């Protein structure tokens, strides 16, 4: 019953999206506003229908409706209430519904926000959004139908992938998809700009906030994904350069590049072609990421099941890229820049370099991700490149980017004078050198660590210099200190939001550097009552207990930790799910600003007399999460509506 209803609603939504896309396109061409309005109604209809589908599927999960195959595959009677909700988007079919729902939601917001303001671009943007939405609804209808029936109806379901039973799983996919789908809007406006030939600045101004919103969610999704990886997967890391992580990281890199290059176009009327290309590339990479996770072309721990969906996505990716690049070729003559680069020592060139580095990083990540495929096509061997490749290539790129974060926002436009350079960078450079010396004096002998530390201090100092100077200027006109600082943040929220994001990145950079340079680990087998030592900590094994949970069996180890004084008991566990062949590790940890204790239970004797344990002391990892919070706050500040600059 609900299976038929869901399938029916999907079909109607698909028909409406197709109709709406065509109506908006024809309406835009012929200038018939009635058609565009009709397309708007269709979009509202699509939104209502997809929302209903989503609600229906959630209801099926909550009521254990195993007559729907997707429910039977991803939940069982033991799945707790909370995870029955996250299970809705825990696998392929549901993730496509969530995706479509977000696209529909963004389409509605686009209608509400831009219906009045952008007469020429808006109908084409609407048509593009609805066209893309139609594709996802097509996927929902033919390739990954969430409402497929299950005959015979099984007595119990298979159960959710145990790794997804985590609070991070409610937020991580939602944030990530909001980021992915968010880039559809700038893309839609870029297409509108190309189709109408209005490739000036209107589309950029219209999509600026959209881009920051998408970027914000994508960053949030990546950070929560890292946190999930750290505290659930139990390998002690937060980033593995896994193909699926890369798939989310690449659009983040090109999206970041776009956020910066936009400023050059706004200010100097340069880089129009580059900006359009970056938007196309970013959107293409979000599709590529979806393709990668859902086609089964490249093996990954995160990959969904495979099927005809991969071919559908590849076809759509081809359509999007060929159409978009074809439009670029068609409008080629309109792309002449008005501005020119005046000097190598200028803000333009700093931003350009930033863009080149970001795109280079995206390219190397892309190259490394598809390398197994490339090597198989060329040499017939499957060879993967692992973390060493990515780290080796990307560390210098990222370090240079961090350095440019200090230079870009302060250096003068057009041509920086020696005076300008001195005024802005003398103190920061001096502080950076002092920082390196202090690190050396404290016993840091790693060149990379010292360099990273010096660079972050340099960048933080440039931010401080700018902020102090701007605050002083406001004090001079008679404001008092705190209103002056608050006013700066709110009035120039885009600039200072950007600075806060930069601070967040600096903190993350320190965390990454520290965890790579100074983390230690060991693996050992302990008899009950025995103690292991690592980095000044003592871990005593106190025995095992077993617990029967609603949908799995859990063996918990108890380890008393001390470093001279008692620190408490850590309880890493192993979870045995009937539907999984291998047990799932359940990590226990104690987070700290300086270091985290991180315990993973390995093999154990059934009578509880001995257990193998992996002990890690991970240094400075918490700063990655703290930096992440700072970064997202900065992005939020930048999203706030820009106040008019008075005085």
């Amino acid at each position, binding site marked *: 019953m609900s299976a038929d209803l869901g399938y029916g609603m999907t079909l109607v939504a698909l028909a409406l999206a197709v109709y709406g896309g065509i109506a908006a396109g024809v309406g835009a061409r012929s200038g018939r506003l009635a058609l565009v309005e009709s397309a708007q109604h269709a979009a509202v209809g699509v939104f209502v229908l997809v929302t209903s589908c989503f609600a229906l599927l959630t209801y099926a999960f909550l009521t254990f409706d195993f007559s729907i195959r997707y429910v039977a595959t991803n939940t069982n009677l033991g799945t707790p209430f909370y995870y029955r909700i996250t299970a809705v988007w825990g696998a392929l079919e549901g993730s496509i519904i969530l995706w479509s729902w977000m696209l529909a939601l963004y389409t509605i917001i686009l209608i509400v926000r831009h219906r009045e303001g952008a007469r020429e671009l808006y109908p084409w943007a609407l048509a593009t959004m609805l066209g893309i939405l139609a594709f996802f609804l097509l996927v929902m209808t033919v390739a990954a139908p969430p409402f497929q029936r299950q005959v015979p109806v099984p007595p119990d379901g298979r159960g959710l992938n145990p790794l997804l039973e985590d609070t991070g799983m409610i937020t991580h996919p939602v944030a990530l998809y909001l980021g992915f789908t968010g880039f559809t809007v700038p893309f839609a406006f870029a297409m509108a700009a190309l189709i109408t030939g209005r490739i000036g600045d209107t589309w950029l101004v219209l999509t600026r906030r959209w881009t920051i919103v998408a970027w914000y969610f994508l960053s949030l999704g990546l950070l929560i994904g890292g946190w999930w990886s750290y505290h659930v997967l139990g390998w002690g890391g937060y980033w593995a350069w896994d193909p699926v992580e890369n798939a989310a990281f690449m659009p983040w890199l090109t999206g970041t590049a776009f956020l910066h290059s936009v400023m050059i176009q706004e200010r100097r009327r340069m880089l129009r072609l580059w900006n359009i290309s970056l938007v196309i590339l970013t959107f293409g990479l979000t599709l590529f990421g979806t393709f990668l996770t859902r086609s*089964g072309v490249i093996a990954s721990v995160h990959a969904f099941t495979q099927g005809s969906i*991969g071919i559908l996505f590849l076809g759509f990716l081809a359509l999007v890229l060929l159409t978009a690049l074809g439009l670029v070729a068609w409008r080629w003559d309109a792309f002449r820049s008005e501005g020119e680069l005046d000097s190598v020592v200028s803000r333009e060139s700093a931003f350009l370099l930033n863009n080149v580095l970001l795109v280079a990083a995206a390219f190397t990540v892309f190259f490394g991700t598809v390398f197994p495929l490339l090597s198989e096509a060329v040499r017939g061997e499957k060879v993967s490149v692992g973390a060493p490749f990515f780290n080796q290539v990307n560390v210098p790129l990222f370090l240079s980017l961090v350095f440019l974060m200090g230079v870009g926002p302060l250096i003068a436009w057009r041509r920086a004078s020696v005076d300008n350079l001195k005024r802005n960078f003398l103190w920061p450079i001096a502080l950076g050198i002092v920082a390196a010396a202090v690190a050396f004096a404290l016993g840091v002998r790693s060149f990379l660590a010292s360099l990273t530390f010096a660079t972050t201090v340099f960048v933080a100092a440039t931010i401080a210099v700018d902020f102090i100077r701007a605050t002083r200027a406001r004090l001079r006109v008679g404001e008092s200190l705190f209103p002056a600082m608050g006013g700066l943040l709110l009035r120039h929220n885009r600039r200072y939001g950007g600075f806060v994001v930069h601070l967040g990145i600096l903190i993350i950079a320190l965390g990454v550097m520290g965890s790579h340079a100074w983390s230690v680990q060991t693996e050992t087998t302990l008899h009950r009552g025995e103690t292991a030592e690592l980095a000044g900590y003592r871990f005593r094994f106190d025995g095992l207990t077993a617990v029967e949970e609603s949908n799995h069996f859990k063996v918990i180890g108890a380890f008393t930790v001390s470093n001279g004084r008692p620190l408490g008991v850590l309880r890493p566990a192993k979870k045995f799910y009937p539907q999984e062949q291998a047990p799932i590790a359940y990590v226990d940890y104690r987070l700290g600003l300086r270091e985290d204790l991180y315990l993973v239970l390995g093999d154990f004797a059934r009578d509880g007399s001995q257990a193998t344990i992996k002990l890690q002391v991970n240094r400075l990892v918490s700063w990655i999460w703290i930096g992440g919070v700072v970064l997202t706050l900065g992005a939020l500040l930048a999203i706030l509506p820009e106040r008019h600059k008075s005085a």
Partner: protein
Amino acid sequence: MKRLWRWLIPLAAVPVLALLAYGFRVSPRDIPSPLVGRPAPAFTLATLGGAPLDLAAYRGKVVVVNFWASWCYPACYEEAPVLERNWRGYRDRGVVVMGVGIQDKREAAEKFVGDLGLTFPVAQDLKGTVSVDYGVYGVPETFFVDRQGRIRLKHVGAVTDEVFQTTVDRLLAEAPAQ
């Protein structure tokens, strides 16, 4: 003469798309089982009806050993009718199909067999030793054993008529065991 070369821009996307399309021709999970070509590990289990099920008793026949579970949706539900159909079609020609249920509750397993009307022998691997011997990673997995008692093919995922018939026909065409 307009600049025609600009139409080469979209072509830049073609190599990447071609590479991704190539990805469909190869499977990243295509990792051969080390057991292929080796003698099939022996086992003796009890069927759900209580009769003994001993692999060694079927030496000289082509044996299809299928690992399944009642909680394995949808693949096990898809392949069960295929196995049943082919078992009926081939049983008189020296072919045996047997199911080994793993990590299952007895009632659920019996309901599965009853609902799908399976008539070939189905046992439960209660201790999990057989699936370990066969290196079963997930369900369903199916092993095709030739008349000499060697594993000749490991199939991961639901068995189709095509896989079943081409493999069994090939093994039947080989010389019988001495």
